[in-house]
């Protein structure tokens, strides 16, 4: 169980709930939600977020634009970001990686897969900061 606060950004309430529950089962109970990139940027300024999980296709501001905005801000530029999306083409993954996403999951996913991805990112981030 970890106290890390995770921001879940997805326009689908179903997916937000699924991710929240999956995170709870793998030991990450502290979560908050945003329905699109714009909403998430606002939430970022008002809370101490340690990790971001974001979808790609969203209204108002999509996940890719959101990531670019986060990375452009020196305060959040090092924040770990995991993208969970239905977009699974090679071109999509490369585009996300070029936007500096830390890791990528194509839906559907399992709680175990989510846990492994988060732990993998945290491990890499720790290595890079040491």
């Amino acid at each position: 169980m970890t106290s890390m606060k995770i921001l879940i950004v997805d326009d689908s309430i179903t997916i937000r709930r699924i991710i929240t529950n999956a995170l709870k089962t793998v030991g990450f109970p502290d979560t908050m939600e945003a329905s699109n990139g714009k909403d998430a940027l606002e939430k970022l300024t008002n809370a101490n977020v340690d990790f971001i999980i974001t979808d790609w296709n969203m209204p108002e501001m999509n996940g890719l634009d959101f990531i670019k905005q986060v990375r452009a801000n020196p305060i959040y530029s090092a924040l770990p970001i995991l993208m969970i999306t239905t977009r699974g083409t090679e071109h999509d993954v490369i585009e996300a990686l070029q936007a500096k996403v830390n890791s990528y999951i194509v839906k559907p996913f399992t709680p175990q897969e989510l846990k492994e991805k988060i732990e993998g990112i945290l491990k890499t981030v720790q290595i890079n900061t040491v």
Partner: protein
Amino acid sequence: MNQQELDGILQKAAELKVFCEYGERTVPVLDEIASFVREISPAIEDLRAVVEVSMVNIPKAADQLGRVTQATEQASTDILNTLDRMVATLDEVITSVASGMISSDLGAATKKMAAIVKSLVDKSGWDEDIVKLAEAWDIHLQSMRMSGPTSNLERLLKDLQSDCTEIMMALQVQDITQQHIGAVMGTIQAVAEGLQQLTTGFFSTSSAEALPPTPSMPVQFEQENVGEAERKKMVEALLSKARAGQI
């Protein structure tokens, strides 16, 4: 008539000859074109009727797909609500099962024994044999919990909780289908726009103006229709490349 004027007449005669020859060749072509137009006229009328029906049906189809999305989203929310309640209830049951024994008599007796053993340890001033007895009692209690009906029940309840999580995760299909429906609606919208342009440019009727707008949906077509496992493998390969600084 001088030579120059004669040359001029001969030139014009040559041009007339070419024109006549050209006419001989073009007239049948023009006849064929006219015949073709006469033949395709009914087909164009048919096409126009199809386009007009499509103009009405496409928005209807888009609306129906939108309703499917709404219905599945509502169903998913209802299922999630029920699962949340089930998981919470199972949590409570697991806690109470883990903290107590099934048989209240056995539970009371065990608690009494545990109190006696603790008291013995305290009273004995941590006598080595008494401490060994307490340790043996602990092991006995643990093995009772592990092998007894309580542990079986606890395991079954945890399995049920795990099943609930699995059902919850399976509801991702709602979002996935919603996104695919969105892509289909985007295609329908593109077809509708194409038909609208066709009617505006070709039929020049008022039906083009009468086209109701199709609902706007995010268009994201998956270009590669590969299986889930292959896609995940591809993602992992790209992530490895990115880690190696190759992307």
